């Protein structure tokens, strides 16, 4: 019946459009678990890592011992920076002001997992992984940038290269979701 056919077509188009929009939103959403915002201090990783040779674990010292790698305390920053003249560097002046006010710096995390994901640095570092394997070559970045999607497929792409008995455990949902 022609009437029905005529009606059906726009409906199908609408449904198709809807599906596309939803799918696009989902893809975009999963791409950015964290909306990137400006860091309170434009911390320059390349100066610290590449030029000065500071090891990652000097500042993110908990990566070896615990779940979270941790951010350095203001005290740790000042350990060196109290000896360094800020000059006309905006970042260093900002840091000096935070230190003066003893105010915590509110960093925007770069590599962030959603709340329903459990991730611990310790087993990864203990397994001999370099920080760069996941976080990219931070020594080449001025302000740290997110690397790839850090989604489940990406995690598993590594885990599946492990020995079968390790893979059983490391592909178990409960390893990361609990």
């Amino acid at each position, binding site marked *: 019946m022609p009437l029905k056919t005529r009606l059906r077509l726009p409906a199908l188009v609408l449904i198709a459009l809807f599906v596309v929009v939803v799918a696009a939103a989902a893809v*975009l*959403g*999963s791409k*950015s*678990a*964290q*909306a990137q*915002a400006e860091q309170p201090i434009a911390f320059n990783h390349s100066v610290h890592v590449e030029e000065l040779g500071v090891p990652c674990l000097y500042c993110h010292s*908990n990566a070896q*011992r*615990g*779940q*979270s*790698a*941790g*951010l*350095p*305390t*203001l*005290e*740790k920053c000042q350990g060196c920076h109290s000896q360094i003249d800020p000059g006309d560097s905006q970042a260093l002046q900002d840091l000096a002001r935070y230190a003066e006010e*003893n*105010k*915590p*710096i*509110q*960093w*925007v*995390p770069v590599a*962030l997992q*959603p*709340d*329903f994901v459990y991730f611990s640095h310790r087993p990864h570092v203990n397994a001999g992984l370099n920080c760069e394997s996941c976080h990219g070559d931070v020594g080449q970045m001025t302000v740290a940038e997110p690397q790839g999607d850090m989604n489940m497929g990406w995690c598993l792409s590594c885990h599946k290269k492990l020995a079968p008995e390790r893979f059983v455990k490391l592909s178990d949902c409960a390893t990361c979701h609990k």
Partner: protein
Amino acid sequence: MSQQISRREFLKLLGAGAVTTAALSGCASATRLVKREPYTSMPEYTLPGTSTYYATTCRECPAGCGLVVRTVEGRAIKVEGNPAHPVSQGHTCARGQASVQTLYNPDRLQNAVRQAQRGSGKFDPMPWDEAIQVVQDALANNDPDSIAFLLGLESDHLADLVNEITAAMGARAPYRFGALGMLDARNTLVMANVLLFGHPGLPVFDIAHAEVTFSFGANFTETWLSPVFYTGAYGNMRKGTPGQRGYLVQFEPRMSQTGANADEWYPIKPGTEALVAQALGALVAEEIGIPTEGLFADVDVAAAARESGVSEEDLHRLAMMFAQSQRRVAIPGAGALGHTNGLDAAKAIMGLNILVENLGKSGGVSLMPESALGNTQMPSTLNDLTSLVEKMNSGKIKVLFIHGCNPVFELPAASGFADALQNVPLVVAFSSFPDETALQADFILPDHTGLEAWGYQKVSTASDRITLSSLQPVVVPVQDTRATADVLLAAVQAIGGDLAKQVPYENEVAFIKAKLEVLVGEDGYYAASDANTLWARWLQVGGWWDSDALLIAPDLTHAVEVLQKQPSALPAAAFSGDEAEYPLHLLVYPSPNLGDGRGANNPWLQETPDPMTTVMWNSWIEISPDLALELGVCDDDIVRVTSPAGSVEAVVYVYPAIRPDTVAIPVGQGHTALGRYARNRGCNPLQLLDIQKDASGNLAFAATRVKIEPTGRKHQLARMEDRVGVYGDRYGELYR
């Protein structure tokens, strides 16, 4: 950082550098923005994302259980038992578990307040220096005789401090009160111990090793004295000794959770506990062939059987069992002692232990030796509290300080305490919550909750050795609260003069350290050669206790003499309310989950089902099926319960294990204040109790009769037991 303030400093830093973590929600939103604040200076023992554990002591009841609290980045997450602690032995009860909800309760007072009009609930915040000024003026400008302190049963260090202050001022020593103490009949038990053994403390019952335990209304797995210790002992009584399964016999008119676990349960007539014990004693004496004089002589077993409802045959069989067992113990519980003849019942039941000479033996009765910090100050008797009320009414009390208890809620309305408060010109409450009593105060100077507080608890019963249990803050105070000891000491220092010289402590921690000096060099679970080491170990271990089990055996000879002089004819229990008008016995018992009611604003305690009825979020009146039939009421009917002293409305729970002439209501609900989860929920049966006392001056809380009238209204109790399918199959029926 000096040793003295390092922990405080550290806690301040925790607060300053608290890490902002992501809002916990099920799914990540694409647009959320998370920020992270590292500490400005890393506190000792803290690693990001890693738990830190602190040993402290539970303050949800007076037992003094040792806790280890898991904290993560300055937040208290989970309460666990302290495995080294002699009382809790690594475990906790539901109330202890929920103490994090006391800490983070949304209805806590956030700062010191002034209440211009009592009872209005309109609070004006005030700075702490003004609050201290109020205390200072009250202490300095009033005759010491007109100042009274009313303290709770927790925080023994505060009781010790206030005792020092009152002694230095020449004021009366503080009163101590708590509904749990009252409903445990602690005073009666202590008085019986004084009379029989000359020991002013509570006994310890070694039920863990007993083959046969006779419990006279002791609900020791629920709230009585020290539930975690005695529940552990119960487990070991059943399965702790290979090849032996301890046998538990319970005598009580209403089946308690403890009674539900008994091998034999006898619903005896309320007030006949003494008779049953006396009959059993006479039969036991006969069986083991010792001459009976005094209390156990010329006992009419047939009459006791008739009065109590336990058959003569059962009495003979039970007496044989008790006499022939190697390790046997009889426990005088709250239900037996809460009558006007409670002291006689206590003596008769303790008499069973004396007859079989189990004193100081495995599976018997022992006494707690005095600790280096002295004995625990026992709760005041109702006689003491009544005289306080009289003094308040006659205007002799000008200032009343109230800490750690909620007498307006916990004392029977008939005591007149609430009205007497109106005659006290200045009432200062130190409650952390705006509870019923705090609402009648002029000033509320909120103390920290247990998990934020310093202190110690001297374990007065239920441990196999001298035990001092330490409290330390596991997190920085959540609200702008201040330790009451610090407030009092600040006031005392400001007053200066002789008082400040006699109470020379700079602050609460200095006071505790000064008290602990006697432990330096003492051999115990650890030995510390200097004060700093002692302090570090004290906080790390969670207190101080002996390295080995050590209790003292009560003096048998003296006890036998006392029993021999005791006349055999005991007074019958008297009841308030004429039997014709008020035909039913009322039994009130502390709710196993809510305790004396302070837990009522912890939502997870409200939602934890009652062990026997599985009811959540409400209270109820337990009525036997026969009585329900007679009254024409059924489950969920609201009835009016009236006693000579008062009247409340309660929801019916038809309870199959209660005498038809008895009804029971749990204590804990019926708050008119305290907070959003507690308010206007259930009823407070303490309002029904008439003031009757036993010979020790304790409240005879089981000596009130009531009548019941249906109201025709209904309230559906939320019960776990109705939940047959996931979606509640029976609700179609209930809500039809």
